[in-house]
């Protein structure tokens, strides 16, 4: 089970409170986690990754275990602590603007 923390605006959009938990088949990677997230919450499509290119949106960041994973390849394995559910995968709106 993967734990995902969404930023406030996306929690509102997805009608969820607190963490989201996901069952991810196969290896836990950014892509597989986000695919599972969007399958459960289709309204999030396009808000974290571009609808066409599937690239991370510029002002969205991915953190886990106090590390910035934003620039890791999308198919790189996530840390064991995330894959095991000990640590959440954080989707963060970058500090910018107002």
């Amino acid at each position, binding site marked *: 089970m993967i734990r995902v923390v969404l*930023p406030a*605006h*996306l929690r509102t*959009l997805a009608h969820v409170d607190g963490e989201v938990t996901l069952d991810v088949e196969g290896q836990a990677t950014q892509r597989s986690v986000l695919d599972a997230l969007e399958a459960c919450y289709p*309204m999030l*499509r*396009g*808000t*974290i990754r*571009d*609808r*066409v290119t599937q690239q991370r*949106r510029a*002002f*969205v960041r991915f953190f886990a275990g106090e590390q910035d994973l934003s620039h890791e390849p999308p198919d790189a394995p996530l840390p064991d602590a995330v894959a095991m559910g000990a640590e959440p995968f954080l989707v963060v*709106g*970058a500090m*910018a*603007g107002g």
Partner: protein
Amino acid sequence: MSGVRVLVGTRKGAFVLTSDGKRERWDVSGPHFGGWEIYHLKGSPADPNRLYASQSSGWFGQLIQRSNDGGRTWEPVGNKFVYEGVPGTHLWYDGTPRPWEFKRVWHLEPSLTDPDIVYAGVEDAALFRSIDGGQTWQELPGLRGHDSASSWQPGAGGMCLHTILLNPSHPERIFMAISAAGVFRTDDAGQTWRPMNRGLRSEQIPNPTAEVGHCVHRIAMHRSRPSVLFMQKHWDVMRSDDAGESWREVSGNLPTDFGFPIDVHAHEPDTVYVVPIKSDSEHYPPDGKLRVYRSRTGGHEWEALTKGLPQSHCYVNVLRDAMAVDSLDPCGVYFGTTGGQVYASADAGDSWAPIVRDVPAVVSVEVQTRP
């Protein structure tokens, strides 16, 4: 009982303002989608309970929201806007080619007859249409495929398709306007388009009378007379009496002919409203006096409407989509400001009162009339 519903898009959410036909006491609902930019929301003429909203954010991109109950509840629908074929390039601010890239939806225009059909004007400029209530979107690529498209350049706010006018008596004919390309018209429901900019003169471009390249801020028409168009250009207020084939200036005695919105009285096709702004770099009213100008003669002769509007130290702007009229009698006129005020006039502009004073900067105002 008659009434109105005013749909207000702001930099940080949407507001729905409702009143009875007197338009004196208002119920304010919102913010909806708090924290998100709501560039535009508009109701279907065919089903007033069907509303569409363009919700966007620099962080999380574009969403389209739909309501089936007049704005009480909303659901996100399709947000996949993909240009047809190879996108090609337009010109960037520095004159270099730049690939078309979808950024946001500026304007949503529901069909006059079918609540599930809605058009979207987007940045970078293109026209999309949904025929399933916003679930899926398809580009009408004939516009972006026009021979001139590779020469289009963005205005200061981006290369946006911001105005879509549907023609009630000729459904195949659509007008739209792009900053800074100009006005285009289709007579075959969007397959092919022609520039409609003859008569425009813009000193800010190398050829002031070029076929395209004009920074048209807004166009408007009266439903009963769709061959007559009014335009607020970057500078100049213009009029066309031949469905856009040619334009002539009708700025007349306006204190400045720079501005953004323009609209037409619901029952008097020659009564037109503008809000003059001092200049292209001074986006506020001349002399700090917020004045709507009304012409009852289709242009040239304009009168200042000031009653109830601030006449000192006022330095707000009124953006291009932030003015609308209702169809009650007398006609109601509404506009929103970048200072967060929404003003209403229940007497065709003779007097004004704020509905709200302190909402976020207003981007768009639309009105639905309940007979």
